[in-house]
């Protein structure tokens, strides 16, 4: 194991620095860039995806042989992530339909606000 370990870990350093730069850039985009909100969201998401790939390829042994376990694990992880996010959104966004006020014209947001005031 020694010969392999003593090699300069170039890939890891590049990946580490890349992750740091992308994280700082995302923080700057959110806090200091002054871009329109939509562009902030888009840029953060793009940087997140890039960083995810950096992590997967440079740290997570995705390119090694015997990668089938890694791929299976990742697919499972994506499945769980989808369940958590989509499931939460779906179960938690139930309507506040018992609106007793007379004007039926208010949008859902209006109804939610009223609901909060009523309590």
């Amino acid at each position, binding site marked *: 194991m020694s010969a392999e370990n003593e090699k300069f870990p170039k890939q890891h350093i590049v990946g580490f620095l890349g992750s740091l730069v992308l994280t700082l850039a995302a923080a700057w985009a959110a806090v200091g860039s002054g871009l329109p909100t939509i562009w902030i969201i888009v840029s953060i998401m793009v940087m997140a995806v890039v960083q995810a790939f950096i992590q997967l390829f440079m740290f997570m042994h995705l390119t090694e042989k015997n990668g089938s376990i890694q791929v299976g694990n990742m697919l499972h992880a994506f499945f*769980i992530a989808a*369940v958590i996010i989509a*499931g*939460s959104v779906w*179960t938690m966004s139930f309507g506040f339909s018992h609106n007793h006020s007379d004007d039926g014209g208010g949008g859902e947001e209006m109804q939610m606000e009223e609901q909060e005031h009523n309590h």
Partner: protein
Amino acid sequence: MDFLLNEFLVTGDPLIYGAMVSIVLVSIAIVFVLTYFRKWGYLWREWLTTVDHKKIGIMYIIAAIAMLFRGGVDAMLMRAQLTLPNTEFLNSQHYNEIFTTHGTIMIIFMAMPFLIGLMNFVVPLQIGARDVAFPFLNAVSFWSFAFGAMLFNLSFVIGGSPDAGWTNYAPLAGPNLNPGPNINYYLLGLQISGIGTLATGINFMVTILKMRAPGMKLMRMPIFTWSSLITSFIITFAFPILTVALALMTIDRIFGSQFFTLTGEGMPMMWANLFWLWGHPEVYIVILPAFGIFSEVISTFARKQLFGYKAMVWSMLIIAGLSFLVWVHHFFTMGAGAGVNSVFSVTTMLISVPTGVKIFNWLGTMYKGKIRFDTPMLWSIGFIPCFVLGGVTGVMLAMAAADYQYHNTYFLVAHFHNVLIAGTVFGCFAGLTFWYPKMFGHKMNEKLGKISFWFFVIGFNVCFLPMYFLGFMGMPRRTYSIEPEWMPLNVISTIGAVLMAVGFLVFVYNIYYSFRYSEREKTGDTWDGRALEWATTTPVPFYNFATVPEITGPEAFWKMKQEGGTTYDKENLEPIHMPSDSGVPFIMSAFMFVAGFGLVWEWMFMAIAGLIGILACMVVRSFDYDHGFHVSVEEIKETEEKAREGEK
């Protein structure tokens, strides 16, 4: 001084004064005994710094039994309060604290550590490995669990216990309705021990996937190892959800954010959603290893190969997959609507299918077997009817429309105790008595074991069956005073609880009695076992296997016994590479405790000091170039000859 008496220490309750006095006395007694017998060095060298999976497993189990005692005392206090109407044995606040700590301790600090302890001891032996994949990380797991548990348990004498239920629902657990350190203890105690659990999940996943003996394909693994592998997957994917939820609520409470608050666009029910996204897989984390234990025990004592091995594996995989798809059934009454509730009703009921498959496989294993009724087998046979009862009432609860009636009543309380005690606790007792000879070199006394089994199993049914009817009568969960018409059933229930307590005490006494009087084991194969852990000598040498056998089929040891084969192949001995002990996990976890205690009291200087300590330990570890040591062939020979004397 004023702060000390009014806020820091919990004052005004004689029960808690008694607890304080006993904590001080026990601590003094431990220090005295260790000093008098000069055991400090021994304790540090052999236990606190160990990375040996067997010793870590034993420490987990000891801690879990201590926590079972603490949680059991909580349960007895609750039963005492609920026996008669209008008692003021506990006031409502104290009652709230006790049901909260009872639930949290039993799930997080008793059930999981008990099973993880058994996994630690058994899994590397079953797959022919010499330790887990990351022995150092394993020690970090144990010590962060131990210090997390200590932090949580400290709450009832310092600062006050958490009192929002083990589910800790927002907004009740939020800063507005529950100021003070109590809920912080819950959040940080679970956070610190959760780090350990997550690391355990990763550790065992890698161990089982990468370190099996040559020839042991996945489908040749013992069933307990399979259950541990699947459990590790669930831990690895479920615990991050808890970590995030706890962190969000900690930020809510300490730094004033509004994730789960009523005001400022917070969503209190999102806590319940995240909690159960973790919490339901958690239920399977504590039941699947128990299923594995029962499978091993039933197959060994029915003296037959496990019936339907493949179906067992697949049903566990399906249960693991479904475990992430049912969480909303814990809060049907939130009112998410018919669409959401029906989907989660169906997924919940689906889980009973693979579980039913497993039940029939256990029955099939026993069918026409020559059954021996030793204590581990009694626990396993007792498990089946008691657990089925819990499973059937679970399907009743799964129907969303009906759940509106059962929700938050004693029907639910009876249901989940029926699955968790009959499943997990019986499983822990079965596993401990089954592997006890391998751990300590002697069996637990059979007669005492049977007495404790009968007290416990009869008490268990007497305690929890009446609760179903109390639920139908409308007795709500988490109430501290009962109506007169609920009294007769509550009295019966309390009698059952006392019987269970007697069973537990006999079990603990049995540990002492067996240590003194049980015959020492002469061979490694106590029960005529079938999996590889019985191929080792008793006591197990620290390197487990002098030579790792080639595995050619399922039930590795059974085959070895018929065809010949050994874990001590004298001709092919090689030096064994073993990891070195380290004090860093203990010290690092102690720093986690310091940081956690600082955050509980919102003393940032202390929290920051603790975090710096943790980072320092990580740095120390990163520059640690100790790659372990080699056990020489002579030492292996000497150890093995000595251990195998009895076999000749």
